[in-house]
């Protein structure tokens, strides 16, 4: 078994993973669900400790788990804000003003993409199509969809977050 530096998942995540085991014929198939659970526990990102703990739990090498983590856009290897904003900038949203919305958000937060505001409240990225083009331009605020944005409303939404 590869060295995972003694990192372990907390019991409640191990229980949640165990509850999913009967769903799949292989242990490896639990990797994406396990990473989702771990990321939630580790405040929205996956520090090395989390990746190694998942590897240990599923009898996988850390290298294998890193390979998967780096492939997917929703797993993060750097700290994120308490609130994560993903602004769709693909064509359907761009046609309705997504670039201006993104510029307004960036201006308001005064940080670059993938950086966290000094108070730890927000981080943002531009994102590919989120599948809500009827609400264009739109973004995800944590797990929720917010649509029909304007440069003004996007600032308002940020202000209203705790």
């Amino acid at each position, binding site marked *: 078994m590869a060295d995972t530096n003694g990192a372990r998942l907390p019991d409640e995540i191990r229980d949640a993973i165990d509850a999913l085991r009967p*769903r*799949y*014929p*292989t242990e*490896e*198939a*639990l*990797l*994406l*669900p396990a*990473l*989702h659970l771990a990321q939630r526990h580790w405040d929205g990102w996956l520090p090395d400790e989390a990746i190694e703990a998942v590897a240990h739990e*599923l009898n996988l090498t850390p290298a294998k788990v890193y*390979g*998967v983590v780096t*492939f*997917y*856009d*929703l*797993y993060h290897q750097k700290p994120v804000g308490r609130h994560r904003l*993903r602004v769709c*900038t*693909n*064509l*359907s949203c*761009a*046609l*309705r*003003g997504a*670039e*201006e*919305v993104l510029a307004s958000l960036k201006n308001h937060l005064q940080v670059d993409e993938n950086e966290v505001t000094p108070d730890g409240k927000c981080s943002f990225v531009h994102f*590919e*199509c*989120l*599948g*809500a*083009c*009827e609400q*264009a331009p739109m973004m*995800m605020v944590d*797990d*929720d*969809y917010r649509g029909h944005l*304007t*440069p003004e409303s996007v600032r308002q939404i940020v202000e209203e977050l705790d």
Partner: protein
Amino acid sequence: MAYEPVLLRHVGHPEVRTVAGYRERGGYRGLEQALTMEPDEVIEAVKDSGLRGRGGAGFPAGLKWSFIPKETDQPKYLVCNADESEPGTYKDRILMEEDPQQLIEGCAICCYAVSANTCYIYIRGEYVEQAEILEEAIRDAYQAGVLGDSVMGKGFKLDMYVHRGAGAYICGEETGMLESLEGKRGQPRIKPPFPAVVGAFGCPTVINNVETLCNVPHILERGADWFKQIGTDERNTGPKLYCVSGHVERPGTYEYPIGATLNQIIEGCGGMWRGRQLKAFIPGGASAPMLPAEFADTPLDFDNLAKAGSMLGSAAVVVMDDQTDLVRSVYRLAKFFNHESCGQCTPCREGTNWAELVLKKIVAGNGKPGDDELILRICRNMGGTTLCPLADAAVGPLRSLVQNFPDEVRAWLDSDGALTPARQYFSEGVTV
């Protein structure tokens, strides 16, 4: 002509999320019907209906099911493709939100037809709320005896699980999706073997799109003949969801008999945005070649769009008005394909990158005569040279830009970097 929606008939009736509420409004009759038939008869009915896949490729659903080997001891699987990441597409989201039992019913009928005892619904990771809606609906279906050890008490065993992706367009490609389901990087597999023979966990597997499966209960309940009389002709049958976005007054997911024209669809959306004129449209998501306004009367179905040099794809209709800069639009799509190329095949990894760089240079005002030819050369080197069709998808908008809208490109190449106000954004004054 008043068309009664089929797939969207329960919109605005949230009570259908439970089995009881769905039954109340006539649901689960298709599954009841299927369970009185032999599995092969179910496959025949779906074949006979002419139902073609709604995920992009338009492959006949019944034919796909018939490829699942019958004489095998291996488990069989259905993986429902709810990855929905083709830019402009959001119909499967609506179907899952508005009528999750309809999808469960369609999946159950498919599983019965091919003797699969396990179904995974692979849903894109961003659809958190929709995954919860499905989980809840599935829990209720177990409780009501629609899922579990004996589906509707008829002795057929079926388990159904929601599996969340984690943000990767390529996981919508069916073999990339299987890799991802198995806990790997979502890199597509070499075919053959096809998933019908070697699919999920090495076993025979059907992969169908959400909308494809949502059609199935209606075919069983009302019959293939009823289904066939909806649509353009016998090769293009049934109801179809069109997801309209861009420059129309009321973007949304609209249901029509397959083969509605763009003009009809725009009218259904309350007309062009701010009364502007149509310049171009994409009929089937980012991968579908862009068409000029002359095609607004073409029936948007598989065969008529192929004839027009484009494709129905996911039926994501992106409407662009006369103020839209098409070069910038295609540049945005080129960025998307470059970001989403999984990197496995060199022509795609390199080609999508070069396409983005060349277009970036052009919209920065540094284009040169001959860059249009360069784009076509990139397309020639990418198309048909890779494991999966992502490279062909990336070629769609690029080639159509140069071939269908040569003047738009040339205007940029001759512009000496002088950007007109209309070009600073995608369309003039969008947020005014």
